[in-house]
């Protein structure tokens, strides 16, 4: 028990699971105790969550959002890779650095420009999402490149590689597993943005639209149930992308294991 509050103490998996379960139960009890008429009790939210999962409305909207997110992530990662790989060429470095700074731009002020530039609501949402995600992806990937072990470059040089061969070996091949890690780490951002973007353009629905609709009518039970669904789907994707990375790049699993030990 003492270990649980000791800095840097390690606990076994079973203890960790028991601890998490206890914390969840305490939180739920706390929530249950604090709920009054306005804030729904956990049991009510759980009931609404189960009902929501079986509705066509939820499934349709969730699929719309998932499809849009995946599409946006695919475009974003392609754009990211292009600029990140090009960033090692001095000519493109400034462009990549500018994209990194674009994290500070808010989407809200740019909606009108994007509306003028796109054909329909679907394109508008996609472009807004890509515009929102890319700076975060590029930031993560540039940090991976910058933090490369200098010995990787030295080994390339001693093997007689020219700069293009070094780029291919270290950045393209050597960092391929990191692309999945960046996707995993930034999926949360994409998932966060989708609700916002769908709120801006409601033409095709989506969980963002659904969330705004429930919010509008103060249907807090369904809002929380939907938040729970969004949370769980996010966790599933996190798990899926992590495993996909380990499956495609077995050495990434060894790296993680070494880092933990």
């Amino acid at each position, binding site marked *: 028990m003492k270990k649980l509050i000791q800095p840097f103490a390690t606990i076994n998996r079973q203890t960790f699971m028991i601890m998490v379960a206890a914390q969840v139960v305490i939180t739920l009890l706390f929530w249950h105790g604090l709920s009054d008429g306005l804030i729904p009790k956990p049991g009510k939210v759980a009931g609404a969550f189960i009902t929501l999962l079986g509705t066509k409305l939820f499934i349709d909207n969730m699929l719309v959002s998932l499809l849009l997110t995946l599409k946006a992530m695919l475009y974003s990662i392609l754009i990211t890779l292009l600029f990140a790989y090009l960033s090692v060429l001095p000519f493109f470095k400034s462009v990549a650095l500018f994209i990194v700074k674009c994290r500070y731009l808010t989407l809200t002020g740019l909606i009108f420009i994007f509306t003028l530039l796109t054909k329909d609501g679907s394109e508008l949402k996609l472009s807004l999402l890509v515009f929102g995600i890319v700076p975060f992806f590029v930031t993560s990937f540039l940090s991976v490149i910058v933090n490369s*072990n200098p010995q990787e470059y030295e*080994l390339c040089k*001693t093997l*007689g590689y020219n700069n293009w061969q070094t780029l291919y070996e270290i950045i393209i091949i*050597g960092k391929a597993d990191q692309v999945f890690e960046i996707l995993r780490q930034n999926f949360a951002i994409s998932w966060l943005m989708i609700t916002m973007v769908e709120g801006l353009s409601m033409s095709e629905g989506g969980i963002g639209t659904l969330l705004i609709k429930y919010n509008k009518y103060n249907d807090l039970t369904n809002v929380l149930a939907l938040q729970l669904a969004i949370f769980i789907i996010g966790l599933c994707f996190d798990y899926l992308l992590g495993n996909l990375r380990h499956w495609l*790049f077995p*050495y990434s699993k060894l790296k993680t294991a*070494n880092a933990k030990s």
Partner: protein
Amino acid sequence: MTECIKAEVVLQATNVYLTYDRPILRDINFCIRNIIRPGLLQGQVVSLIGRSGIGKTQLFKLLSGLQAPTAGQITILDNKPVKAGDMGVIFQNYYLFEWRTVYQSLMLAAKKNKKLAGKEKQTIDQYADQFQMTGHLNLYPQQLSGGQRQRVSIMQQLLKGSDFILLDEPFSGLDICMLDKAVELLLQVSLSDELKTLIIVSHDIENSVAISDTVFILGNEPGILGATIKKEIDLIERDLAWKKDIKHEKRFLETIEEIKGCL
């Protein structure tokens, strides 16, 4: 004394200086000659010995061509200035690409060696057998022990086909058993080709001297900033080169003491 001839120069450092905000290395002058022993393919094993922090790693980088000297030049066979890729380099921690299996890493090096064109796989298998790594070819570097990584690093640089192998602190971090194996391995490499030249940069005097034919001592001189080659010891002349179990002999111990006195 063992019969041998010191023939042509294979590596020459001339008036090499390295300065950052202060002089690190100055007036580095030394040369390595091809040693010819009748009836043997005898390569060269040279040690550059110096205290920690004296500038050994900087000299290592200059010799490997990874860094250019502030002044002076280092030339190899046919008086050609050394450049990155000319030397086989084995880093202190035996760095290997973490995303490549042992086989893939070796293949990358073999493909750089024009002499091996079409015979890459066969040569890798031969080396793997010779270095007892056959069963480890499909493993990633993280799955190898320190000694195995060292062997893969050496194999990689040998497959690349360079005549020079530069080793940075090859004995650090190895246990007693591995140390003996490492020494044996380096001797084996030095006997693989007449022009094969091993340059060991180390502060481990005993082990470096035990396998070398020549020792260069890197040190500071009173009142002058920057390290230089203070002394060259010809171990062949002293009949200390190429001898097994030399470490216990009085002459060897005296040489060790002499080197320590110079540091």
